[in-house]
């Protein structure tokens, strides 16, 4: 039997403790849902997600797709009459989902790119040629062209557990 609807107050508390102090302030007016571009053409309801979080419906939230439908556009945050940090709360729950192993393959690839070059997108020979033709260095003066900087960048990701988290090297 599914236990998806069993409230877990400890989950709501863990969001609050992690920085989502404004979670309790939501009085379910629905202004966020009415402002949300993601909910227009889909069943995603910001108000409902916040309600689920208040109730601690952890098993409903963490594996869900809806958790990842927010573009972090902040339209709701601008209008919420209770100053709920909606985006921060969604991000905290995403962090918890990732900790539980719920992470899209395409997102793992973005993480892997960060581990490799310190950037979310790779370069290419074509890009290097274009940069050079414009009088820019073939590679930008970033982690992508600086082995020491890349090693430092990687060290931070080891230390915070990110390397392990996304199953990378």
């Amino acid at each position, binding site marked *: 039997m599914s236990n998806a609807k069993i409230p877990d107050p400890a989950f709501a508390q863990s969001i609050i403790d992690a920085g989502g102090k404004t979670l309790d302030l939501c009085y379910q007016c629905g202004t966020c849902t009415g402002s949300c571009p993601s909910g227009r053409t889909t069943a995603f309801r910001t108000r409902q997600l916040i309600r689920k979080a208040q109730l601690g419906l952890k098993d409903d939230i963490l594996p869900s797709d809806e958790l990842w439908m927010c*573009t972090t556009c902040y339209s709701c945050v601008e209008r919420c009459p209770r100053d709920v940090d909606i985006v921060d709360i969604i991000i905290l729950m995403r*962090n918890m989902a990732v900790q539980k192993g719920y992470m899209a393959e395409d997102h793992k690839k973005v993480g892997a790119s*960060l581990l490799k070059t310190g950037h979310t997108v790779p370069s290419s020979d074509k890009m290097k040629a274009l940069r050079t033709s414009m009088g820019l260095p073939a590679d930008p*003066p970033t982690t992508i062209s600086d082995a020491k900087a890349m090693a430092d960048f990687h060290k931070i990701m080891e230390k915070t557990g990110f390397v392990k988290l996304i199953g990378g090297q």
Partner: protein
Amino acid sequence: MTNDKFALFLGCVAPLRYPGIEKATREMFKALGYNLKEMPGAGCCPAPGVIRSFDQATWLALAARNLAIAEKEGCDILTICNGCYGSLFDANHILHEDPAMLAKVNEILKGIGMHYSGKVQVRHFADVMFNDIGIEKLQQKITNPLNMNVAAHYGCHFVRPSKIKHLDDPERPHILDELIGWTGAKSVPYAEKNMCCGAGGGVRSRDGKFALSFTETKLKNMKAAKADYIIDVCPFCHLQFDRGQKDLPGYNLPVIHLAQLYGMAMGLPRASLGLEAHEIKVNL
């Protein structure tokens, strides 16, 4: 006299997908008397939608490393991307508000011989153009006034969340429209102008089709308002509109970053604008 105040933060999408945005920014600021410093060894900001959603502690520590690089150079940070601005501004804000968090991050930075004390300001280049440089100095440099109808796309993380950024009215922003107007181009009003392009929050990488549904709504409204170009202030929105139109038949609106627009208006050589990298050809 040159102004040494800013170090240029490149991020990922500008230097590795649309280097014309980087080049035009460098040339424009040089012409305006700024000597933009480098941020040697900087990395991804890191991206607010993906990396922050995966692990906030990692996001904060990597952002602090970037902030520390600028601090070492004795500079404030100039960003050319809403995502970089969003991440670095937010991270800086957290580190300012929360000394315990700053101490924790510095423990991590110590492992690579770095330290951040919180002295850096993070700025968006359009904010600097509008508020620091201003109409007079910018218009003095305009040798090739533009005559075109454009749709201004602010994106999400330039003026929002306004409670920490305080740059502009979040519901009716005007900075970008004014900056466009100063070049001679006309920013046309269109429906749902403040709407997101669809790319943010990790949505583009996780569900590209869903992201495109936002993009299509925006394009439809821009086209209905008879805009001939899209002007953005973010390489990621830029990419979403430019590459997105390949998969959206019936649309062919060239996408131009504000730095490229000023490059045109200031008469920079076309080669400095990197328009070859654009999917939707810019015939100007």
